[in-house]
């Protein structure tokens, strides 16, 4: 009779040895799957992260844009790929980056991406003189409906007494039909500088809209006497 115990031990060793390639194959397979999964997950995670960051970026942009006047909001939206025709409107964007101590919108971080190397030179080449650009800024802001933006301009006017700010407010409120406020800001402009025709016209026009037609006519007549302004005469005829 054989030594069965010894034979059994021998068989156990044989069995382990035989299964070793299987275990190694399984280990390598598991390792391969794990690596593949890791690479796949990393890619997916990275894509998700990029998508998330892009989404956040868009949210911030939109949020900031909501705080801006409509024209500037449009500018931020124009961060999206634009057609060549749309790029022609870029001067607006450049105007925002003009150093202007009263321009709140230009300090908004959302406009920073607009200052890309790609766009700035193009904008500069097309941009008119700085003065006209300055005026354009206010024209843009006229379209805004953001209350915060008006508050910022108002508070800035009280600090600086810049007629550009007060005239902007008068014009904006007038365009929005808020004639009482338009009258107020036209008067504020006149108080600082009574030679600005637009403020006189806005003041008179606002008064007329508020039903104070006689006062409006009186104001216009006195201004016509003083300056012989054609615009004032035209407005006077209109009011009459």
């Amino acid at each position, binding site marked *: *009779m*054989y030594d*069965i115990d010894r*034979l*059994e031990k*021998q*068989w156990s*060793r*044989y*069995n382990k*040895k035989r299964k070793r390639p299987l275990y190694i194959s399984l280990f390598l397979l598991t390792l391969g799957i794990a690596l593949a999964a890791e690479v796949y997950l990393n890619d997916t995670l990275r894509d998700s992260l990029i998508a998330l960051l892009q989404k956040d970026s868009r949210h911030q942009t939109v949020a900031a844009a909501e705080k801006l006047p409509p024209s500037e909001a449009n500018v931020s939206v124009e961060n999206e790929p634009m057609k060549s025709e749309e790029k022609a409107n870029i001067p607006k964007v450049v105007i925002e980056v003009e150093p202007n101590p009263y321009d709140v919108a230009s300090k908004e971080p959302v406009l920073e991406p607009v200052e890309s190397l790609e766009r700035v030179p193009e904008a500069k080449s097309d941009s008119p003189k700085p003065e006209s650009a300055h005026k354009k800024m206010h024209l843009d802001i006229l379209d805004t409906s953001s209350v915060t933006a008006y508050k910022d301009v108002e508070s800035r006017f009280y600090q600086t007494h810049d007629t550009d700010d007060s005239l902007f407010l008068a014009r904006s409120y007038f365009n929005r039909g808020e004639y009482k406020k338009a009258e107020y800001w036209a008067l504020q402009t006149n108080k600082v500088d009574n030679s600005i025709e637009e403020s006189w016209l806005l003041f008179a026009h606002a008064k007329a809209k508020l039903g104070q037609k006689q006062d409006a006519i009186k104001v216009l007549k006195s201004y016509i006497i003083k300056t012989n302004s054609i615009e004032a005469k035209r407005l006077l005829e209109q009011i009459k």
Partner: protein
Amino acid sequence: MKSRYEVAKNVFIDSVDVDDYIDLSTSVSAFRQLQYSIEKPLKMILLFGRPGTGKSILLNRIAMKLKKAKEIHYFETPSTNEKEFFHKLFKVLTNQELPSNTDINFSSLVNYCKGLRGEREIVILLDEAQMYGPEMMEKIRLISDTRVIKFIVSLHKTEDEDLIAKEHFQSRIWEVIELKNATLEDQIAYVHKKLLKKNLFEVANSIKEKEMRLIHSFTRGNFRECNKLFYTIFEICEYYDTHEPSKIRYDRISKKVIEMAALKLGYIDV
């Protein structure tokens, strides 16, 4: 009580006993071919195959089968020298023992055979003929040329012996019968028939085809190796049956037991 595996293992004790002969499709075919060749006017017939393919048992069976119809003699053990071989041959021819201190003259023997032509036709089965040297084989050929003695020469088929077969046999017009290793189907039939012959039906039924594939791969269809492996398998089973019955499956011979036997016999190693 005697373990069933003790009986089973004894079934596979290697022997050339004609009672242990198992009819398989291939062995039946070889038997018929050999029987047919003996009837033909051939001087020598070559039976060859790898060890364990059933050459000896086939010779034994043909001797048993034809002993009443023909003058047939089976030289199971090869003679160690020429003298011993001629002594055996003398006894076959004369039915007498050669007196001691007497040698046979080969030319006289050939002439004696020639004198018997037409009177007798003797068949001599030479097993393990690779043990005879080329000189001896040449003398056997000269005796067969007398057409009185027909030799059936059984050879192991190995690389060297294949050369012998080519040089000494295939150059002449002799019949060549080759025995091949058993196929899986043959081996399954062989094992089952062997066990059923001893009424070991349950044991035979516990050897499934899957395990037989493993056994066939170890033994490569060699009947002798198959006998050895089964003997060892049943010896291990006998141990478990007697000492640790919980470790053995009675409905199926386990792969573990087969591999333990293979380790024991050196078919596989650690």
